[in-house]
């Protein structure tokens, strides 16, 4: 065999210069290139300006020829770089801040060069055209319209024109011969940095791109013919590189799959390769990363990735964006850019991601806690000090997770942990779930007085004194059912720096401006009240100067079916509430600690606790506690309350349970005259009172597993109330019920104060078929006549406890106008309070004295014996006002006249109605306590009463006699209990029809009002009334002869004498005064709705008291 001087092994029979064959691809392919695998330098042997395009074409061919997809030769490098270019084009919009496209239009640019005056440029133009013409078919130059060139202008640029790649008519894309590894860190797709020495074949790239490339191949007409090298390369990729799953995806592609990708528009051009449009990554293309946040809440298309902040191997098997996470990767602690505008660390792609700085606050707020309640979530707490910390979670956290999830576990570990490393060093660990049951752990150290350096993951620890209250922490299924109040209390000077907001997930609720009652009074702590209505929330965010933290209340999910019935006796002086569950036994309203409504967290001292008691709600109400029913009917409001604006119960106003028991605040105003006041704002006051009450009641229902819509509420009205006022009340009650309970309107049940006690006695006592019930309140007395269990007649009149202790017909209140019985005992009571250092009560007394409202003072006197402080000091007997009066013979005549007046009136009515004398008379109402001043012996009373009846009837009392029934301890309960025992809707009209108004003693036929209006009342009518009063007074004095007041009631003779002188004076004036007051609430055309009999007596009693006082002082 002879030698032929050639590089490949072939026919060696040639001798001399002998004929051979052209060097075809076989021969060229057979040329041994021992260095091919290690060649690093660029190949530059193509005698064409388009050498680079040819080289890339050759590179594809060589890689295919080697059969080795993942080699490291210069050919692999060129293919890898060209694919980098393809991938940059594909992701161009995401890289628009660092890469742009320059268009080189063939015809336009060639012409410009060829016609240039510069020899060099002209030569370039001519040469390019010559090569494009002559080599056109080989490289598809004949199809090429433009070359699209990538211009990199990012931070690592090295010249003013770094051109890093372009489209190629022969291989779709080609790379530059320059070394662009310096920008690898700036552009990367997953671990694959562009143009670096770590080469990536097509299959080693982002799957989204891989599939797209195959889609482009399928959509490109004649791809295999036009790009044979790339086509074969892709065959090799399919064969040796793709996973079976990826092959499935490629198999499912068709020529139309390309439409899933938008065209790549570079104004005004669209990037095309030989006329076929290239495409870009769909805008909303999701990265399929293992770091994608695992959320049930957020529904956004592009969920952010949650990235580790520490390098290491923990996550190296987690897929990042186009490759696994690298051990050297780590996210910054803090990224100042909006999440949507961020670039993934290392990958450098614009894609949302999250890091520790997005979740954890810069400051951790420590709150001294005296309340160990477990009804808020403070994280898994390690080292249980008495501190609590607001969770330092930013809003972003709640965009992806619920408060509920926060309380759970992630990968078997608590989602959030707070560890007190040292007293001034607290570590917070948060675990954020990502895909595949994994999580990213973020930890931040908070150092007391430490610097805030989010970029270094350092936070500061601060301590603040405040408390947060929530009424009530109930979880509502429906937004519309939710009524919350929240409070934050702090030192006065901190009030502007502390704010609450409420979040449901990431949404912050819109709530009215919080209410601060003491805006100016720096003596007291300040409480900010927030109103949240018909909205639910699960997070309370506390903003504290520039810092914030969250409190997660553990709300109770309640869905009971128990049926609650409340009976509310909204009285002139006192109110009482009884309730029953599922028609069971009734009991006075109570709450706490099991069903405490107001949850308090944080720093609470006695001072702040008491402000909550007074301005919001005590934590406990009930028997044997400081606060209980019946209580004073009163509404507390901020002094600044403007009734013309929205006024919210339990914010601007509340029911002051401590009223009369503890001193109040100067910034508050307490309104007591709610029931009968003619003040223009009174309806609003009542509304606030009732709504305050309802918020409390509904909480009670929910906390005790009741059903709101099944709750019944019985409220009482006196029969003497005019229809207008009744309607106004009814409206308030009904609307409030609908608002807070939302049930059937028929569940809000009006009953008359008169009939309710009857119902109680009818159920409580045996043999009470024929009974008269007399309910004496503060302002009115209601009488019901019943026979055989059926109510026949009702009457009602303004003659009650206030007739003795009040100051009727006084228009100009002053210290001198205060009722003299009260004045009589002022010093006594004051001395006792002083002797026992009951300063709060003394303060209250002083406040009352200043107000000069006699009924308030009386109410205070009567309340003393049940006051907790008094009880605690065992002073109840000493300050039992009832008892004092019982023992005081001077004033006894007042109570005799009071009692006799009612019985006298009753007997006349019954006689006029031809009824038998009553078998039972039952007393109820707080005012009925005055009867016990007369005598504590029922027999004496019964005897006295019988005498009155016998005298009026002119006949002997029947043999069965008379039984008087009293509820000694709490006569107020009777109304409520009666209401609960038979909650029956008693319409005003229906009640009115049973109502009788006894006029006078002119004869049976016209003894009762029968359609006469107030207009008809003339002097004669008044005179007849005065005459009747005189008749009555004489009746009382005459009775003394048969029934000695001295003997039976220990009434002083002297007082009796005074009475005889005093009682018959000025009766006409008093009658007119009484009528005058009445006329304020009725019109001329209203039917006369109460007897005028008591008008003169009202005034007369007051005068009598003054006279006795005068005599004795």
């Amino acid at each position, binding site marked *: 065999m002879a030698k032929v001087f050639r590089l490949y092994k072939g026919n060696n029979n040639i001798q001399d210069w002998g004929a051979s064959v052209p060097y075809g691809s076989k021969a060229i392919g057979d040329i041994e290139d021992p260095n091919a695998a290690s060649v690093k330098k*660029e190949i530059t042997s193509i005698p064409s300006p388009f050498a680079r395009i040819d080289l890339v074409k050759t590179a594809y061919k060589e890689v295919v020829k080697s059969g080795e997809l993942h080699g490291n030769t210069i050919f692999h490098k060129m293919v890898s770089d060209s694919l980098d270019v393809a991938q940059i084009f594909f992701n161009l919009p995401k890289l628009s801040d660092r890469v742009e496209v320059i268009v080189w239009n063939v015809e336009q640019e060639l012409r410009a060069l060829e016609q240039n005056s510069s020899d060099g440029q002209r030569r370039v133009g001519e040469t390019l055209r010559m090569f494009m013409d002559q080599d056109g078919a080989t490289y598809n130059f004949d199809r090429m319209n433009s070359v699209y060139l990538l211009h990199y202008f990012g931070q690592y640029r090295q010249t003013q024109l770094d*051109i890093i790649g372009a489209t190629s008519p022969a291989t779709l894309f080609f790379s530059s011969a320059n070394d662009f590894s310096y920008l690898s860190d700036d552009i990367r797709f997953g671990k694959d940095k562009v143009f670096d020495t770590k080469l990536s074949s097509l299959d080693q790239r982002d799957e989204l791109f891989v599939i797209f490339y195959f889609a482009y191949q399928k959509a490109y007409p004649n791809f295999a013919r036009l790009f044979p090298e790339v086509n074969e390369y892709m065959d090799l990729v399919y064969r040796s590189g793709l996973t079976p799953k990826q092959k499935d995806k490629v198999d499912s592609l068709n020529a139309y799959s390309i439409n899933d990708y938008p065209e790549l528009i570079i104004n005004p051009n669209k990037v095309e390769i030989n006329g076929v449009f290239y495409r870009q990554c769909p805008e909303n293309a999701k990265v399929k990363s293992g770091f994608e946040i695992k959320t049930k809440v957020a529904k956004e298309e592009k969920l952010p990735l949650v990235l580790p902040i520490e390098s290491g191997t923990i996550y190296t098997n987690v897929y990042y964006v186009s490759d696994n996470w690298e051990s050297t990767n780590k996210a910054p602690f803090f990224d100042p850019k909006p999440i949507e505008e961020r670039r993934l660390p290392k990958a450098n792609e614009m894609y949302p991601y999250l890091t520790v700085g997005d979740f954890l606050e810069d400051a951790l707020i420590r709150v001294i806690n005296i309340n160990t309640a477990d009804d808020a979530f403070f994280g898994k707490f390690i080292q249980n000090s008495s501190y609590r910390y607001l969770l330092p979670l930013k809003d972003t956290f709640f965009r992806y997770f619920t408060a509920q999830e926060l309380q759970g576990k992630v990968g078997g570990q608590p989602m959030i942990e707070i560890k007190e490393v040292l007293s001034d060093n607290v570590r917070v660990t948060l675990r954020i779930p990502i895909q595949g049951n994994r999580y990213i752990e973020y930890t931040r150290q908070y150092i007391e007085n430490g610097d805030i350096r989010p970029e270094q993951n350092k936070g500061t620890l601060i301590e603040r004194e405040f408390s947060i209250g929530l009424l009530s922490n109930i979880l509502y299924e429906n937004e519309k059912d939710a009524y919350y109040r929240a409070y934050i209390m702090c030192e006065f000077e901190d009030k502007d720096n502390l704010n609450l907001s409420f979040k449901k997930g990431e949404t912050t609720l819109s709530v009215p401006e919080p209410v601060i009652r003491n805006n100016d009074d720096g003596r007291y702590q300040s409480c900010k009240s927030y109103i949240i209505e018909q909205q639910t929330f699960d997070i309370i965010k506390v903003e504290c100067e520039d810092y914030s933290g969250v409190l997660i209340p553990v709300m109770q999910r309640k869905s009971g079916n128990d049926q609650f019935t409340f009976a509310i006796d909204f009285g002139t002086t006192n109110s009482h509430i009884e309730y029953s569950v599922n028609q069971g036994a009734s009991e006075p309203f109570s709450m706490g600690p099991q069903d405490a409504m107001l949850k308090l967290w944080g720093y609470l001292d006695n001072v702040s606790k008491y402000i909550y008691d007074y301005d919001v709600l005590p934590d406990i109400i009930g028997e044997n506690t400081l606060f209980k029913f019946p209580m004073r009917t009163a509404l507390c409001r901020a002094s600044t309350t403007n009734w013309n604006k929205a006024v919210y119960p339990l914010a601007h106003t509340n029911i002051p349970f401590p009223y009369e028991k503890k001193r109040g605040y100067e910034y508050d105003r307490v309104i007591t005259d709610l029931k009968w006041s003619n003040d223009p704002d009174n309806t609003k006051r009542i509304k606030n009172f009732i709504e305050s009450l309802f918020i409390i009641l509904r909480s009670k229902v929910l906390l005790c597993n009741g059903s709101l819509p099944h709750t019944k509420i019985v409220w009482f009205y006196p029969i003497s109330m005019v229809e207008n006022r009744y309607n106004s009340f009814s409206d308030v009650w009904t609307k409030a019920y609908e608002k807070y309970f939302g049930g059937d309107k028929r569940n809000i049940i009006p009953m008359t104060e008169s009939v309710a006690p009857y119902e109680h006695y009818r159920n409580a006592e045996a043999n009470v078929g024929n009974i008269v019930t007399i309910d004496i309140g503060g302002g009115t007395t209601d009488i019901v006549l019943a026979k055989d269990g059926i109510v026949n007649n009702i009457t009602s009149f303004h003659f009650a406890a206030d007739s003795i202790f009040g100051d009727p017909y006084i228009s100009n209140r002053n210290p001198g106008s205060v009722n003299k019985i009260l004045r009589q005992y002022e010093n006594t009571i004051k001395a006792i309070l002083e002797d026992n250092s009951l300063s709060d009560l003394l303060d209250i007394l002083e406040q009352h004295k200043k107000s000069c409202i006699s009924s308030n003072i009386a109410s205070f006197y009567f309340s003393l014996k049940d006051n907790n402080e008094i009880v605690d000091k065992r002073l109840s007997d000493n300050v039992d006002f009832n008892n004092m009066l019982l023992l005081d013979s001077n004033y006894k005549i007042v109570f005799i006249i009071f009692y006799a007046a009612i019985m006298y009136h009753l007997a006349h009515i019954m006689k006029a109605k031809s009824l038998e004398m009553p078998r039972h008379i039952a007393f109820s109402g707080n005012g009925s306590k005055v009867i016990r001043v007369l005598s504590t012996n029922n027999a004496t009373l019964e005897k006295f009463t019988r005498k009155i009846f016998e005298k009026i009837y002119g006949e002997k009392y029947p043999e069965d006699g008379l039984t008087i029934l009293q509820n000694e301890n709490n006569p107020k309960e009777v109304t409520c209990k009666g209401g609960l025992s038979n909650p029956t809707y008693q319409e005003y009209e229906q009640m009115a029809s049973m109502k009788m108004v006894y006029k006078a003693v002119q004869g049976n036929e016209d003894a009762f009002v029968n359609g006469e209006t107030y207009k008809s009342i003339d002097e004669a009518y008044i005179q007849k009334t005065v005459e009747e009063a005189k008749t009555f007074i004489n009746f009382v004095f005459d009775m003394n002869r048969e029934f000695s007041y001295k003997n039976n009631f220990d009434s002083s003779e002297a007082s009796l004498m005074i009475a005889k002188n005093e009682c018959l004076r000025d009766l006409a004036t008093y009658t007119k005064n009484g009528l005058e007051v009445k006329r304020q609430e009725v019109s001329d055309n209203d039917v006369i709705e109460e007897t005028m009999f008591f008008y003169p007596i009202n005034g007369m009693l007051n005068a009598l008291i003054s006279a006795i006082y005068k005599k004795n002082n």
Partner: protein
Amino acid sequence: MKTFVFGIGGTGARVLRSLTLLLASGVECKSDIVPIIIDPDMNNGDLTRTVSLMQRYVAIKEKLHFSSNTKNGFFGTEVVEKFNFRLPIKNSQDITFKQFLDYDNMDYASKALMQMLYSTKNLSSDMVVGFKGNPNIGSIVLNQFSDTDEFSNIANEFSQGDRIFIISSIFGGTGASGFPLLLKTLRTNGSIPNHGLINSATIGAVTVLPYFKVEQEEESSIESDTFMSKTRAALSYYEKNIGNKIDTLYYIGDNTSSNKAYENHEGGDEQQNKAHLIEMLSALAVVDFANGPERTGSTVYKEFGLASDNVANVIFSDFAPETNRIIRRPMTQFMFFTHYMSHIDVAKCIKQQWSRNYGLDKNFFGSDFITDIRYVQEEYVNWLKEMGTNRVGFAPFAWDNKSLFDIVNGVTPSRSVFSIFQKKDYEQFDVTLDKKHASNASGTKEQNFMELFFQSTGDLVQNKLNF
């Protein structure tokens, strides 16, 4: 008939050197040769050496006359000097490629395209020493043949029947780019003089594939590791873009793995590589082409084969008969001539009979003519020695002071029965000269001198070596 031989780049120059020496030795070429070197690297050592050799050749040839009566074959082929054998490449001196392109004044898009097609290193390369293995640069810079007066002038000289031959290497810069570009121009340019003739002329080319290595130097732009890769890439390009334009394409190259490494010079006067058999064979391709048939319309591809597979030191006997027919006798004759000239003492020589007969006095032996001959002969020896020490080596002659007739390797001189041949080498040579002198006495001294030596060496070769 003329054959315009374009020697492009360093390889082109070296092949022309071989060709010149072969022609000097009397290798027969039926066509006049118009050598034209295309190389922007004006200081290339290979180029200057070749040019000055050719100039001596021309100078010698001018003194000689050839007719049917003359037997001399030395310097027998007409070599035509045009423009110092060089086709100037304009605007490539003292500027960078970037400046050549007028890159800085290009519009944005074209700048960007240039960035993409050429590396930054390409763009900033200075081109003083050519294109340093970057034919893509050459493809633009050299695309100016048709613009030059010199080229027009050459084209004007083109006559019916004249041929064109292009010598280039595929793995370098200048040759690799110049060849396709020149071919494209010759075949397609419609604006050059005689374009009708030229476009359809018989064109041949030798494409020299890698046959040597250069020493690896990190900083150099020439890296022989890439030669094979480059070659394959370029061959692929030729396959698609050259084949249809050429009549005869000669491929030659050699597996470089065992070949010697040359010192690494990017160009300049230091680039003066040792001559190599491949270059001589390439020169023979010119002869083969010039002596070959007219174009037939289809491309003929040729490769060179030895008769043996000896790849260490090739000697005449390793060639097949046809090659030996062409080169063995003239090369040996010229070797004898050279040998004699290098060993004679002029003072002694002028006393010889044959000198005296022709009046070849001291002046003659000190003339430019003899100086030029000595120069060429010196080059001839150098050339042979270089080839002998290269790998693949070509060592037809021995240098170890053997007797003159033992100088041809692989050949044992015949021991003649005639007494004359019993004499010592040079005495015997003188005897032959004296004897030949009798039959040749007309003409100039130079003509007579050359005729005498040609015929004498011819006799010696014939008688002693039987060539």
